[in-house]
């Protein structure tokens, strides 16, 4: 037994050695990643991610609404041309939206009820509202009230799309109030500690009036789309609507991951190699530039080789070896100017990324003035013409923000009005009925948003059926529906995309069932 006593003592001695172990083990602090952050650090990243998100939405919109078609030399377009969607198609719209929203929600949660950060709070709420509208316009019902609760709710329930619309309208009012509160404090209180957004605001450089203008324009976007279904206060902050294009630019440059996202996708990669050339100009949109429906000098700014022999377009779903390839510099870079600092839609790797343009805001005002009751005054035609001019101005501005005499927006705008003076799509006076007026407005908006914010045109088409297409036609100038469409609808188009695979897998109980890409509609879609 003596041996057992020895052994017991030895065991105790070893056990004692372990009594001071906690210190030895407390080494799990992360040396690789930050575990805390500040609104100042979060805002610029969130805004820049929104710019990338707009590129994701732009791709979906451009493929669905006839801006882009499959190019020659590539195959395997699958559901892109058949519309027989799976849950994986375009799912980046969902995942990137919520990913981005998580950051805005973080800013909101960390600045709520903090007067000093009311600008951060207001800006984050405006962006949250904007992205939620894009989500609803794409998916209809989406999680809103239960979202971003992390471990408290890993399977957030879906809110009715109309409820989300109401909520984001209120959120925009809330944001305006927050910003006004901060501005008032800055003006009235000498000891005010309200933090300017300053350089952290990669959208407006800290100009809070511009933020309020964006909020006003977004309120109008919500109200217009839900017109006749939902009613809102239709009141706007005194600063009015957008007066300059809302462009995000954190300092885009030619470097890996640091380029303007649109340019990076469709122009040149950072290393100088050409980006995606599997897609090219759609024959349908071309007909508004090449003289088939309208002749438009903006084509020179936007398209590669516009109006010369190398100019190539295709109809979506036409897969044959006779389809021409996209030009080696891609379809959306004109070769007239320096590709690094260009006009058109791909203005260069360092150019700002449009969140919303003045043109869109103008056309929305035109539509609101046309239908009335949405709190927008003024002459419809003036708003309409302002929109066209604003589009010329945006497209004729170089990536670095400069203009040149070679690209005279005013002159070409006038030339455009003259050349197409017989078309009511340009000459607003020729549009006699409300329907023709609406068609003119939406068609001009469609032209202005080509490869700018393409998803908004897809939303407008579903809501208004403009620009007009010929249902069932196989002529690429008359419809943008794919030749390989499997759609059961008369227009041969889908009505929406499906919820993403991640929701199917991880939030299946809440996800609305029996969603069909041809029969399920967004709540504002009258078709």
């Amino acid at each position: 037994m003596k041996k057992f006593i020895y052994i017991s003592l030895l065991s105790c001695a070893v056990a004692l050695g372990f009594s001071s172990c906690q210190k030895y083990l407390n080494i799990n602090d992360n040396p690789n990643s930050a575990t805390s952050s500040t609104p100042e650090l979060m805002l610029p990243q969130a805004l820049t991610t929104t710019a990338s998100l707009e590129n994701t939405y732009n791709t979906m919109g451009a493929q669905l609404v006839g801006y882009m078609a499959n190019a020659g030399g590539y195959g395997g377009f699958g559901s892109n041309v058949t519309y027989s969607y799976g849950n994986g198609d375009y799912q980046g719209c969902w995942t990137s939206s919520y990913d981005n929203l998580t950051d805005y929600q973080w800013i909101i949660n960390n600045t709520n009820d903090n007067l000093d950060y009311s600008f951060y709070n207001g800006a984050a709420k405006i962006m949250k509202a904007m992205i939620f509208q894009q989500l609803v316009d794409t998916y209809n019902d989406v999680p809103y009230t239960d979202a971003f609760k992390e471990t408290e709710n890993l399977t957030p329930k879906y809110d009715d799309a109309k409820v989300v619309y109401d909520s984001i309208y209120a959120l925009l009012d809330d944001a305006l109030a927050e910003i006004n509160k901060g501005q008032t404090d800055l003006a009235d209180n000498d000891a005010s500690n309200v933090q300017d957004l300053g350089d952290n605001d990669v959208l407006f450089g800290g100009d809070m009036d511009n933020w309020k203008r964006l909020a006003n324009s977004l309120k109008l976007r919500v109200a217009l789309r839900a017109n006749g279904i939902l009613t809102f206060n239709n009141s706007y902050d005194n600063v009015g609507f957008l007066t300059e294009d809302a462009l995000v630019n954190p300092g885009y440059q030619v470097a890996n991951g640091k380029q303007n996202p649109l340019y990076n996708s469709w122009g040149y990669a950072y290393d100088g190699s050409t980006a995606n050339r599997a897609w090219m100009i759609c024959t349908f949109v071309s007909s508004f530039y090449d003289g088939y429906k309208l002749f438009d000098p903006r084509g020179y700014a936007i398209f590669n080789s516009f109006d010369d022999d190398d100019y190539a377009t295709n109809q979506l779903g036409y897969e044959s070896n006779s389809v021409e390839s996209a030009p080696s510099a891609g379809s959306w870079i004109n070769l007239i100017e320096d590709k690094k600092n260009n006009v058109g839609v791909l203005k260069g790797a360092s150019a700002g990324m449009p969140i919303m343009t003045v043109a869109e805001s103008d056309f929305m005002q035109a539509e609101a003035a046309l239908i009335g009751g949405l709190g927008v005054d003024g002459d419809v035609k003036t708003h309409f013409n302002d929109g066209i001019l604003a589009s010329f101005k945006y497209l004729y501005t170089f990536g670095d923000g400069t203009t040149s005499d070679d690209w005279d927006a005013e002159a070409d705008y006038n030339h455009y009005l003259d050349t197409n003076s017989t078309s009511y799509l340009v000459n607003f006076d020729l549009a006699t009925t409300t329907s023709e007026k609406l068609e003119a407005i939406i068609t001009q908006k469609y032209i202005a948003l080509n490869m700018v914010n393409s998803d908004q045109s897809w939303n407008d088409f579903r809501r208004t059926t403009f620009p007009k297409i010929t249902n069932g036609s196989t002529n690429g100038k008359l419809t943008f529906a794919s030749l390989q469409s499997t759609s059961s609808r008369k227009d041969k188009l889908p009505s929406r995309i499906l919820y993403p695979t991640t929701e199917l897998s991880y939030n299946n109980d809440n996800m609305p069932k029996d969603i069909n890409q041809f029969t399920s509609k967004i709540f504002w879609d009258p078709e």
Partner: protein
Amino acid sequence: MRQKLLLFFCFGLFLISSRTFAQKTNVEGTVQNQQGEAIPSASVKIKGTSNGVLTDDDGKFKITAEMGNTLLITSVGYQDMSVVINSKHLAIVLIAANNQLTDVVVTAGGITRKKIELGAAQTIVAGEQITQAKSVNIAGGLQDKVAGLQIQGTTGGVNPNYRIILRGNRSLTGNNEALIVLDNVIVPNEVLGNLNPEDVASINVLQGAGAAAIYGSKASNGAIIVTTKKGRAGNTAIKVSQTETIESVAYFPKMQTKYGQGGSAYGYDENGYPTFSNIENQSYGPPFDGSTVDLGEPLEDGSQQTITYTGNDSRKDFWDKGLTSQTDFSLTSGDAVSTFYMSGQYASVKGTTPKDKFNRASLRINGSRKIYQDKVQATYSLGFTQNNYDITTQTADIYNNMLNMPSDVDITRYANWQTDPFANPNGYYNPWYLNPYWELDNYRQHSRNSYLVGNVQVTYKPLQWLEFTARQGITHRNYSDKTWNGSFTYSEYAKTISSNSKSDISAAVSDGEFYSTNLLSDLFFQSKFKANDFSFNILGGGQWNQDEYKGINVSASPLVVPDLYNVSNLVGIPGASEGNYKARTMGFYGDFRVGYKEWLFLHMTGRNDWTSILPVNTRSFFYPSADVSFIATSALDFLKNSNVIHFLKIRGGVSKVGEVNLPGTYGTYQLQRTYSQQAGFPYGDLPGFGLDNRIVSDQLKPEMTRQYELGFDLNFFPRDIITTSFTYYHSTTADQTVSTGVSYASGGSSYLTNVGKTMSQGIETELKVNPIRNEDWDVSFGLNYTYLDNKVIDIDGDLINQIALASYSDGSGSYAKAGYAFPVIMGLDYYRDDEGHVIVDAETGLPTKNPTLQVLGNAVAKHRLGLDFNVNFKGITLAGLFEYRGGYDMYFGGGNTYDWAGTGIRTTIFNRGRFVFPNSVYEDPNNPGTYIKNTNITITDGNGNSGYWTDDLNRTVSSNYVTSGAFWKLRELSLSYDVPQSFLRKSRAIKKMTISLQGRNLFIWLPKTNLYTDPEYSEVSSTSNGVGITGISSAPPSRYYGGTISFTF
């Protein structure tokens, strides 16, 4: 004694060099066992006579004989030995026979135990068995030699990877690989591929979790305990050997050689065939007709390449014959107080992928010394390995390119891209794919690893029954690499002529370095004593483990000066990243063993671990185990004297082990949500942070595995002519640590939590028959069979019932799915009726695709069989090893790409014509819900590059590429010849000379339905649990054959 031995040793050497005469002389000698202990009463006879003596208590003998006579030495418990007399003094070492009663094994912690004491399954593999077929990697040499041990060669290439699994998968997404222990030090798995196989003395495979008390929770997956060679007292030997091995590609996916490039997109010719195209890469053109056709666009100078339009399939010729050279050297020596072993190996490998090279140099030094009488002993073991890889990074791309290439194109013709304008990227015929030879030269990776693995140990034995051991082990790895690709600027002509598909390539380079250091400290006491009929063995101790990693990577692109691959040679901003990881674990353990009368043994262990990577409230966890061993042949009178049943042990054990399976390097830093610079930040002086997508839990805990096993070892007839062993085990693992996807709307995309349960049960059996063993012959056969039933019980109720372990972008892949085998292959399938017939459209005859993922097969082999034989006749040994795996399926992920290209054999089964979809039905229009067998509704689009074969209906239906994973392989075959002593005597210095020929993976037999590849290969890395999918991401499977010559001095 020490001086005496040394003197004797020198004397012996001296005598070797002196002249001897063929006359009667007095020969002296000693007989020892492998541990250097004297063997008394051994019989020493002159062969062919009746003259003989017995050894004395010190193992010494004297006998009168002629030089050149052969002595035959026999002793109970040892193998018979013949020795030619070439000296007046002989040191003879007998090798222990397989004797269950006295055999000892090195088990967990470096502690030796008698085999009879062990209550859990263990299998010992001797070093010679591993090096039989001269695998450069130990894992390759261990394949199929142990029941329950699954070693899967997951890749080809110059240094193939192996996945090492014992008793199936337990953890859903965590580590399932067996713990590797090298000379009592836990080492990362990759060390196995960087160890000289010639250094291995033996490998002990602990199938169950029994080693966990000693090694901690990492041993919950079983352990592979590698012991390297030690020197032996009184025996000095130098061994030199050279091995040359040829490697050749053994298997290719089956390709069609009937149709060349073109397709219906170019229209149809007068015979109704799709038109030929000179640049098309899809093989949907007209049938080969031997005519001369243009290939590619004309060059800028107008010259046009032409080829004969015939299927020749030169793809196989692209791959080289590989060559591996291994040079080995080792020296062992020892005396009464110290032992010494040193070795060196240089292996160089030229792979089957052209230009791929690998080399490895290893050095080892092992030894021991008694310091203070017999009370203090120091031992050390130190190995250093350095390897170099020079490989292309584009193997997968090249392989894919090759599978896409029309079979009339002779790829080997494009090797000289620098000088041949048709091989130059500007003139290369195919605008969509690069010339693979250009890729070989322009996408390279040079990497270098050095490993230092070693330990030092001191034992102190103050009392006869008490011993203390202190041990420090270290594994240090240092890695650096340079990965680069060259640039190419196309001529304007080349860009426009090839449908604008040739786009400039810019150069890039990335440089990375990391080190990892794993420290393991052990301090334990061991006490052995007897009291009456009871024997006790008590062990207690502590263990401290620290893992540390630091890595840095810098990348640059595009580059300025061509061919200068340096990260400072760039335009723009370099990319940079850094990772630092450190984790610690400490454990306190006890191991208690009590034996009764040498026939009943009870063993109990307990261990508590504390780990730095879990939350404070769950970081401490305890796990116990117990096992029993009963030697029936010693305990029961009626068996004691049985002539049939020579040995019978019945054993059983239960254990519970916790394993911490957090993701990431060492599982560190998973407890706090992180923020990082995203979206290209920083831009200049503007920083920007965003939330990362992992939602964290503060409730993480270890995965718990509960296992029990029962078995027996049964040997028949004296000398154990037939030995058998049988084990049944059952284990369940609960609280799986799973990073599950979550709805993005929750504020993240993944969540780490403890859910789910898996089960594994199986049978491990071994049978060895040694029917003939005499002076001239030694014949043995072995068989090991493993049955494995591995399942996912549940994951997280309704919320998550499946987890993708490895999947392609279309969702097909390897999954863990509740209620199914673990893992299963999932993917898309057609709609089928109740009998499994594919439902086709009544109008078009086209099958209908079910859009939800289906379980398409079981990805893990249920049955594994190893068959080996070893026939030795007078120094000639023929040994071989066959393997069978069955009861599972595999998915070929490359099928979809080569059907797209029209090169796959499937695309020609109906000669590119109309066909009725095989085994199909269509819905009865009069009775919806019932189906009519389809015999006449044909698919019209069986031809052309926009027809059925390239359609999503064919290519994205993964079930089209799922096939049985069964195979038979001739894994190893070797023939060796020991040059007779009578011949060697003339050369004096050479004690032994062996010449051998050997081959590995020589033949594979696959079911007819497997059109693709060796099911053993895997699309994913060897550490991923997502097995079951094969693809084209590594070089095709190889066979190896070569020869070795070795000398012992």
